[in-house]
């Protein structure tokens, strides 16, 4: 999980990479004054665009802030998801924003003062030239989408085993079913986070609540129940109610997850984000601070990252063979290290993280860094040239 505010940022960033696809590497396409360049003049109350219709493909917004406030400019889908954005455009300065857009309706928003809905301009993108495609990457995306859907589907019955136990007031059974119910989520978390609204309902930690939110009434999801099961060791009516909420929110996830925008870049970035999750939440033992089942989440995150990598590998290995070799090596090393903490391969019963000492945590952290660093270069290796 991430803190709520961070989730929103991540969702935005992910959406931006989703839609941007490969565009940013094709800077040379956007010759000054061509069809693909749109002048945007932002003031404190206006957002003027030089044209409201342009062909699909690579577009460049040449932005000038003539207002007195720092502004930001967005290209938005009709449902307000972000295609691309440029923040912190100071008064009197110029900035560029590039995006790869398909045909359809969009809005360009200027946000003087960097808040609110901003001043909007409707724009239309027409036929134009399409984004270059690689059949292998299309297959990778399709297979990954199937994987993500399958994970969500498999999670629902496991979550129900967990929530049923909570509803029955069976503390022991609920504790046993808790970590297994989270594996599918942990494997595909960046995709779920791209929706922005589900993660804060199901996977937020108490410290992730925003100022003004009351843990008693506003904290929902797995970790709220985790605290009840391990710290308070009590299941009351509120917990039973929250079990139902969790079922419902996960069902919502399962129904929507297939519609997520997935691109090779977002897959690669998602893999890196999964390792970020491990590095910031699991290695430290923060994620599962009551149940200490961090290593189960850890394994789920790594498996999800490995899946995305495996699917992208045919292209990545061609574009950057040294990177693929290093990733193979470091995934294998981390998997091997994690195996030390479970009885047999295939089992998801891992050593309780409070039993993992400082030196062993350091070893895990080193292995995560060793993988995450090359993984951060995967996205660049799957860009369509």
């Amino acid at each position, binding site marked *: 999980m991430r803190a709520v505010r961070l989730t929103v940022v991540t969702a935005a960033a992910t959406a931006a990479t989703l839609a941007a696809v490969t565009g940013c*590497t094709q800077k040379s396409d956007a010759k000054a004054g061509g069809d693909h360049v749109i002048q945007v003049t932002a003031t404190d109350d206006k957002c003027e665009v030089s044209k409201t219709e342009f062909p699909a493909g690579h577009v460049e917004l040449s932005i000038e802030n003539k207002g007195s406030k720092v502004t930001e400019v967005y290209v938005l889908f009709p449902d307000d998801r972000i295609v691309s954005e440029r923040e*912190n455009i100071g008064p009197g300065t*110029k900035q560029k924003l590039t995006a790869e857009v398909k045909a359809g309706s969009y809005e360009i928003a200027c946000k003087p003062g960097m808040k609110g809905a901003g001043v909007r301009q409707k724009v239309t993108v027409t036929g134009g030239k399409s984004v270059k495609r690689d059949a292998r990457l299309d297959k990778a995306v399709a297979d990954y989408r199937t994987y993500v859907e399958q994970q969500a589907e498999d999670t629902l019955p496991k979550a129900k085993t967990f929530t049923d136990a909570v509803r029955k007031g069976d503390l022991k059974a609920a504790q046993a079913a808790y970590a297994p119910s989270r594996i599918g989520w942990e494997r595909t978390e960046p995709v779920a986070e791209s929706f922005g609204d589900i993660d804060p309902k199901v996977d937020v930690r108490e410290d992730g609540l925003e100022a003004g939110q009351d843990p008693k009434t506003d904290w929902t999801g797995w970790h709220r129940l985790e605290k009840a099961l391990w710290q308070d060791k009590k299941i009351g009516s509120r917990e039973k109610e929250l079990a139902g909420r969790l079922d419902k929110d996960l069902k919502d996830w399962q129904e929507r997850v297939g519609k997520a925008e997935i691109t090779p870049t977002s897959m690669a970035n998602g893999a890196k984000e999964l390792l970020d999750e491990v590095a910031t939440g699991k290695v430290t033992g923060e994620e599962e601070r009551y149940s200490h089942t961090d290593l189960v989440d850890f394994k789920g995150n790594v498996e999800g990252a490995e899946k995305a990598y495996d699917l992208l590998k045919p292209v990545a290995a061609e574009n950057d063979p040294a990177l693929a070799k290093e990733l193979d090596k470091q995934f294998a090393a981390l998997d091997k290290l994690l195996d030390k903490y479970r009885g047999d391969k295939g089992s998801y019963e891992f050593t309780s993280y409070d039993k993992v000492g*400082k030196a062993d945590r350091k070893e895990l952290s*080193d292995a995560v860094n*060793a993988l995450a*660093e*090359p993984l951060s270069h995967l*996205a*660049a290796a799957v860009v369509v040239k």
Partner: protein
Amino acid sequence: MTDTTSESANSRTTSRRSLLAMGGAGLVVGAAAAGGAVAVTRSGDEPQPVADTGGAVAFHGAHQAGIATGVQDRLHFAAFDVKTDDRDEFVQLLKDWTKAAARMTEGRVIGDGAYGGLPEAPPDDTGEALGLKPSRLTLTIGFGPSLFEKFGLADKRPEALVDLPKFPGDNLDKARSDGDLCIQACADDPQIAVHAIRNLARIGFGKVAVRWSQLGFGKTSSTTPDAQTPRNLFGFKDGTRNIAGTEREALDQHVWAGAGDGPAWMTGGSYLVARRIRMNIETWDRTSLSEQEDVFGRDKGEGAPVGKAKEHDAVFLKALKPTSHVRLAHPDSNGGIRILRRGYSFTDGTDGLGRLDAGLFFLAYQRDVRKGFIPLQRSLSRHDALNEYIQHVGSAVFAVPPGVRDSGDWWGRALFSKEA
């Protein structure tokens, strides 16, 4: 900055990015000028007198920079453990590190820079040093005893690289001690030193992992006697009699490993002892002036030894208390032993009990640890009145190889080449 970034500065309309790029291009000029000035006046082999604090120190030379070099104001010191068992991979890391180190000491970005590259990839350089001067950055590598248990190096381990014995009063934290490798980054700007370690650590992921690191905020020794002697956190001038970077003979006699001292790969190198010395700041501060001065054997204001008027007046040892720090550490009390000290004060916040977690990160270079730090510390650890106010909590020792000769050379080449 790289040519690529200068190009992008020209080809783009004015934007924050291109403004930055132009700032970067400006830096090239500054760095080149500073580097040029250094190159004209001296090579890396020569001692560096007090320099323009923004300038560049030559990376290449017979000895590594960062030892006889005039002590910079700030430190980031990192010890690493080796994570790979592939010798070729480790050698490649040493080459990559050397290249990056040379660039950073010149005030240049590493790899393809901090921006302007592929938007899908993280930039090679982390960027926080953009627009800053080289700040006399030096990067100095050392090899710890445990490195010689790897890569079939056992017979290359110098005899002088001994494991330090336990000294009375040592309370060493394993997590702040030892290491297969170390890199000492010194600069006049703390951000430059931190940037260097951060980027080298990043290049090393998968091959090495940071074991521990230490920031130092104020030099406590000087290798430039004309400059004002810095004070340690006890408020006393420290290192008045340190070996100066200009004392060529003393350096050859006490600091640089000579031909025939040990394995040939160490000739021109040195041995480094690093000790994290925690100071009991609060109890020291409650100590009367006379006791403080007795403990050191110098007066607090001028730094003059007992019975003398000026800091640099010769010490008359018998006038000092037998347990005073200066008397015990003096070469005349130790058969002429001298070491080159390069330590830094540190404050890592407070310790949870409201006490400053502060002290001296002691760094000393010498020709042979067995004839330098060990006998000195044996004496000090037993008798020094200062022990009531300090505790050694971290310790490491490293063989510091000779300098990187030119752009074709790399850190540790002589150690890792087959014929060495």
